[in-house]
């Protein structure tokens, strides 16, 4: 979306005023409505499709593989594909790297939940396809990953847990599946406009924003990675340190509501 200089100036002034006036009439902490469908891909262990009200759409598929966790350290791997972007495009690689850090075992996800036996674990492959996106897609992607992982069912183990002494591969039940329970982190994106913080900026708001913040939320508290991110090329400016705290406080206040609504799917 490209706005004229006059449109940008008008939009900036209304967003930077107190209280801020957003073009679609939302409150500073209010999200755009989203639609989520889960478990619609028959060939993957879990899947979700998320559609935002501006037409942004993203599909996530979860697949799994049994690996020796003494050899493979990272048990979650994210791969992002954005329609219309090359695989080595800056935005694609940046989002891939960020999401891999978000879901890194240890800080983000409890990897013991993926352990099958003393030797083997499930490795989860998260494949993200962004079909269309108008604003920064990372928040949308993380909601999709969250709902996909929460709808993931993995085969049930029937062989013994202790397999260090005996050389045997894990054996699984023919029909029974177990729900994956790993409580993945969420990522929120905020726009800094003047002295205001706005959650979930739309495309036109991103275009005039002075700066942006990416904040992760896991297990009821703010966690790393936290980043500042330029939402456009032309209007980026510095911001006061108190806005950082204000943004964190905003996420802290409203993230539980988002988690609750995603869990009620």
């Amino acid at each position, binding site marked *: 979306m490209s706005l004229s200089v006059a449109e940008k100036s008008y939009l900036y002034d209304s967003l930077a005023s107190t209280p801020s006036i957003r073009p679609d009439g939302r409150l500073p902490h209010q999200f755009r409505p989203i639609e989520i469908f889960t478990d619609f891909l028959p060939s993957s262990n879990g899947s979700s499709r998320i559609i935002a009200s501006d037409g942004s759409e993203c599909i996530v598929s979860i697949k799994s593989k049994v690996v020796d966790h003494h050899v493979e350290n990272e048990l979650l791997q994210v791969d992002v594909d954005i329609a219309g972007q090359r695989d*080595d495009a800056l935005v694609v690689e940046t989002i891939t790297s960020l999401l891999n850090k978000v879901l890194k075992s240890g800080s983000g996800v409890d990897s013991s939940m993926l352990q099958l036996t003393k030797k083997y674990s499930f490795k989860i492959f998260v494949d993200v396809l962004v079909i269309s996106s108008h604003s920064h897609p990372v928040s949308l992607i993380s909601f999709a990953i969250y709902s996909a992982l929460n709808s993931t069912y993995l085969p049930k183990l029937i062989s013994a847990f202790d397999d260090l002494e005996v050389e045997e591969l894990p054996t699984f039940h023919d029909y029974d599946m177990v729900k994956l329970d790993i409580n993945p982190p969420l990522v929120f994106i905020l726009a800094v406009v003047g002295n205001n913080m706005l959650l979930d900026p739309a495309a036109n708001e991103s275009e005039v924003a002075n700066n942006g913040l990416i904040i992760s939320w896991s297990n009821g508290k703010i966690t790393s990675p936290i980043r*500042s991110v330029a939402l456009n090329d032309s209007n980026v400016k510095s911001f006061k*340190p108190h806005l950082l705290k204000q943004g964190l406080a905003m996420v802290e206040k409203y993230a539980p509501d988002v988690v609750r609504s995603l869990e009620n799917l």
Partner: protein
Amino acid sequence: MNVQDRRRLLGPGAAKPMAFSNTTTHVPEKKSTDLTPKGNESEQELSLHTGFIENCNGSALVEARSLGHQTSLISAVYGPRSIRGSFTSQGTISIQLKNGLLEKYNTNELKEVSSFLMGIFNSVVNLSRYPKSGIDIFVYLTYDKDLTNNPQDDDSQSKMTSSQISSLIPHCITSITLALADAGIELVDMAGAGEANGTVVSFIKNGEEIVGFWKDDGDDEDLLECLDRCKEQYNRYRDLMISCLMNQET
């Protein structure tokens, strides 16, 4: 010059191209070294050089050496140079980070850092002064190594790598700022950054405003402490940058 430029109004036929007197006097490489250790972990020697690559517009070398770690990186600035295509009212910046001999960081992570740095320098460089032009910045991580060669298991090593890339970012910012200043590109202020516990904060305006924030480890509990420690480091680095540039002037 026999090439006829049809797009511009040319001078009279007998006009000769302007020739300047030889101004390519060799700029002496200046070095300033910080010798003021503060506490154990910030005991870091920093040495800065500018203007040593001839075919670019500005360049800077930053070498940092602390007790167990040595880093050195080179930044080169090409531009402002004209871009093809339609008119743009502002300059555009591109930053590329490259691994040196030690292929330590994967390209995903380097691209993430370079897009973070682009966000910072988009707000620091006075881009409206450079319409229809591009500024290309290349950062080459020449050397980044632990001096203590402890045999470490894989887990701690992967943890080290993630914390190290954040310890690298302040030096990237210092070297890019110096190289931009060396190229004579107009900046809003000297940008600098500090790092504490995997948190990098980049400041301008004497630490009153933030241009970049990067946190890889931990939660938000030690945020205020990190902000203060980063600001301290920023002040040190900025003073060093200024003294380096002032030395060069004389």
